[in-house]
C-alpha cells in the first residue's frame, strides 16, 4: 500500500497542472472569496450546503455543511418496534427505498436466528435490484443535466417510471414500499408481474444502450468528467467510500458477491464492474454498467424463482433476543448497514445506521481542494449522494 503522502503528491501535481493552465491565477494574485452553494441548489439533491473558499477560479478549501434534514432516526428507532422501524428507514435513501429495508431486516433476522424462505429471498433480491435500477437511472440523467445536457434527465425520469410502476405493482408503494418483514415478505408477487417486469428490463437495457452513446459518448461530457476528481483507491478506502465510487477506483469489491447475507445473488451469473481511472467519468461508467448488469440479475432471478412460502414461522409479536448484529448490503449508493443492539425487548436498544452517502461525501473536503468551480458540480454529481442518506 502506498503511503498517503504519495497521494497528496499526486493531488498537488494535479493542482499544479491546473494552475499552469490558468495562468491568470498565477500571474494576477486575486483576492480570496467565499462562495456559498446551497442549501437550496439543484446540484445538491436536497439541502446540502457547500462553503468554498476560492482563489480566483480555484477552490482553496471546501466544506460541506449538512444537518438541514437531520431527522434523528437513530433516536426514533429506539422507541419503535422492529416492524415499525422499516417505515422510518424507507426514507433514508428515498430513491431506492426497498434496498434500505433489507439490511435492517437481515440484522434483525440474524438476532432472531430466522431465515426467510428461498422464495422470499429471491423476491427480495429482485426488488432490491429494481430499487437499484430506479435509483441509478435517475443518477444517469442527473449527472448529465448538471453538466449541461438537459435531455437525459427527462429520459431518465420517463424510463424510471417503468421500474417504479413494477415496484408499485408488487409492493403498493412507488417510493416507500415498506414491504419487507422479519422472516419474509408482506405479500407474494401479483399475477402477470414477472412478464411485465421482464419487458421493463428489456426497456431498461435499451435505456442503458442509449445513454452509453448519448452521454458517455458525448465529447463535452468526456471533456468535463475525465480526469476530474480522481480518488486513489487507498484514500477512498480510508475515507470509507463504498459502492460504485470505490469500484470506479479499481477496487473489486461488491457486498452482493462478497457479503454473506441471505440474498440470492450467489444463485445467478453476473459480474462486478470496475474501472481503473477513479475519476468522475469512471464513476458514471461503472454505474451505467451496473444498471445493465442489474437488469440481467433480475431476469435470471425471475426465470429461476423457486416456489414455496414467502414467510418463515415468526411470532406475531416480534421480540428480538438480546444480542448485537451488524448486517450490510450493497445498496445503490454503496454499503448500507445497520448495527442493531437488542435487549430482548419489543424495540431495539440502539440502532446505528451506516449510510453510504455520509461516508461517500466525507471525502469532499479532500477531493475539492484545488479544483475549478465548475468541477465542484461535476465531482459532487459523480459522487452521487442522497441527502436523506447523509442526514438520516
Amino acid at each position, binding site marked *: 500500500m502506498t503511503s498517503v503522502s504519495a497521494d497528496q503528491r499526486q493531488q498537488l501535481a494535479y493542482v499544479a497542472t491546473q494552475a499552469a493552465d490558468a495562468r491568470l491565477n498565477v500571474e494576477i494574485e486575486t483576492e480570496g472569496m467565499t462562495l456559498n452553494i446551497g442549501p437550496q441548489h439543484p446540484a445538491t439533491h436536497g439541502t446540502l450546503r457547500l462553503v468554498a473558499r476560492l482563489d480566483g477560479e480555484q477552490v482553496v478549501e471546501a466544506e460541506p455543511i*449538512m444537518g438541514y434534514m437531520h431527522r434523528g432516526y437513530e433516536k426514533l428507532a429506539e422507541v419503535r418496534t422492529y416492524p415499525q422501524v422499516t417505515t422510518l428507514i424507507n426514507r433514508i435513501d428515498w430513491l431506492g427505498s426497498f434496498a434500505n429495508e433489507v439490511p435492517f431486516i437481515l440484522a434483525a433476522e440474524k438476532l432472531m436466528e430466522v431465515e426467510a424462505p428461498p422464495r422470499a429471498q429471491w423476491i427480495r433480491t429482485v426488488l432490491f435490484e429494481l430499487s437499484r435500477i430506479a435509483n441509478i437511472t435517475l443518477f444517469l440523467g442527473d449527472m448529465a443535466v448538471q453538466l449541461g445536457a438537459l435531455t437525459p434527465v427527462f429520459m431518465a425520469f420517463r424510463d424510471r417510471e417503468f421500474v417504479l410502476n413494477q415496484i408499485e405493482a408488487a409492493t403498493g408503494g412507488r417510493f416507500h414500499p415498506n414491504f419487507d418483514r422479519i422472516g419474509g415478505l408482506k405479500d407474494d408477487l401479483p399475477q402477470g408481474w414477472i412478464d411485465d417486469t421482464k419487458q421493463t428490463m428489456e426497456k431498461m437495457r435499451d435505456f442503458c444502450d442509449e445513454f452509453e452513446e448519448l452521454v458517455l459518448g458525448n465529447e463535452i461530457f468526456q471533456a468535463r468528467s475525465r480526469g476530474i476528481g480522481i480518488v486513489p483507491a487507498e484514500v477512498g478506502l480510508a475515507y470509507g467510500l463504498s459502492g460504485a465510487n470505490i469500484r470506479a477506483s479499481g477496487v473489486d469489491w461488491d457486498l452482493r458477491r462478497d457479503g454473506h447475507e441471505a440474498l440470492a445473488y450467489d444463485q445467478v451469473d453476473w459480474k462486478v464492474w470496475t474501472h481503473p481511472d477513479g475519476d468522475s467519468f469512471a464513476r458514471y461508467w461503472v454505474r451505467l454498467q451496473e444498471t445493465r448488469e442489474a437488469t440481467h440479475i433480475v431476469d435470471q432471478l425471475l426465470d429461476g424463482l423457486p416456489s414455496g412460502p414467502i414467510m418463515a414461522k415468526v411470532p406475531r409479536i416480534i421480540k428480538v433476543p438480546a444480542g448485537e448484529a451488524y448486517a450490510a448490503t450493497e445498496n445503490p449508493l454503496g454499503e448500507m448497514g445497520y448495527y442493531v443492539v437488542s435487549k430482548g425487548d419489543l424495540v431495539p436498544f440502539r440502532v446505528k445506521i451506516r449510510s453510504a452517502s455520509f461516508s461517500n461525501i466525507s471525502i469532499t473536503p479532500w477531493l475539492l481542494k484545488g479544483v475549478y468551480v465548475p468541477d465542484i458540480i461535476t465531482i459532487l454529481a459523480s459522487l452521487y449522494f442522497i441527502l436523506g442518506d447523509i442526514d438520516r
Partner: protein
Amino acid sequence: MTQLSSTEVENDAAETGPQSDERREAWAAQLAEALGDGFAEHHIIPGSDLWVRVNRESWTDAASAARDQLDCQFFDWLSAIDWLPSPYGRDMDAQEDNPEPKAADPMEQGHAGGETRFQMVMRLYSISEHMGITIKADLPDDDLSIDTLISTFPGANWHEREAWEMFGIHFNGHPDLRNIYLPGAFEGNPLRKDFPLLARRVKPWPGIVDVELFPGEEGP
C-alpha cells in the same frame, strides 16, 4: 474484473462456513499479540462476526494494527453506545401510555463485555478477506474522551464529530470538533439514554394498536 459462475460462488460459500471461525480466531489472536495488555476481551459468533474490546489507551493502536496486520483498510463506521437503561421507563421504550414506575434494569453490556456506561464502537473491514471486525473500548464516566483516529483513517473525522455531538464524547487531537447535524446552539446530547425524546413524552405513540393482543393470545 472477475466473472463469477454460480458454482464458484457455492464452493466459496461452502468453504467459508467452517473456515471462518478459525480465521476470526486468528484475527483475534493477532490483535491480542499486537496490543498486549491493551486487549481486553473478544467474542466470536462462528461464521458471522468478531467483536474485540480494547483498553481506551490502545484505541488508535488497535485501529492501525487492524489496518496493517489484518489488512482492514476499509473504514466502515464509528459510533458509541450508551448502555444506561432508559430512566424514563417503558414509555420511552414501548407503547404504554402511563406506565407504572419500574425499577431500572441493571446495566448490561453486549458482546465482548464492558464495564462502563459509554462504549466506543468502530467497524473495520478487509476487502481482501471479505471479513469485518467490530472494535469496542470502554470510556470511564468521569472522563469521556478518547484519542482521535484521523491520523489512521481520515474518514473518522465526520463520524467522530457525530459521536461528539450525539454522545458528548471528546476526541483528543480532533482538529475540528463542531456540530455536524445539530444547530450550533443545541444543548444536550440527543443519543444519550437520559435525553428525553420530547415528542414521545408529550403524546403517546399511536402505534400502540400494532401490539394489541388478539383474544386468546398471550402477552409479549
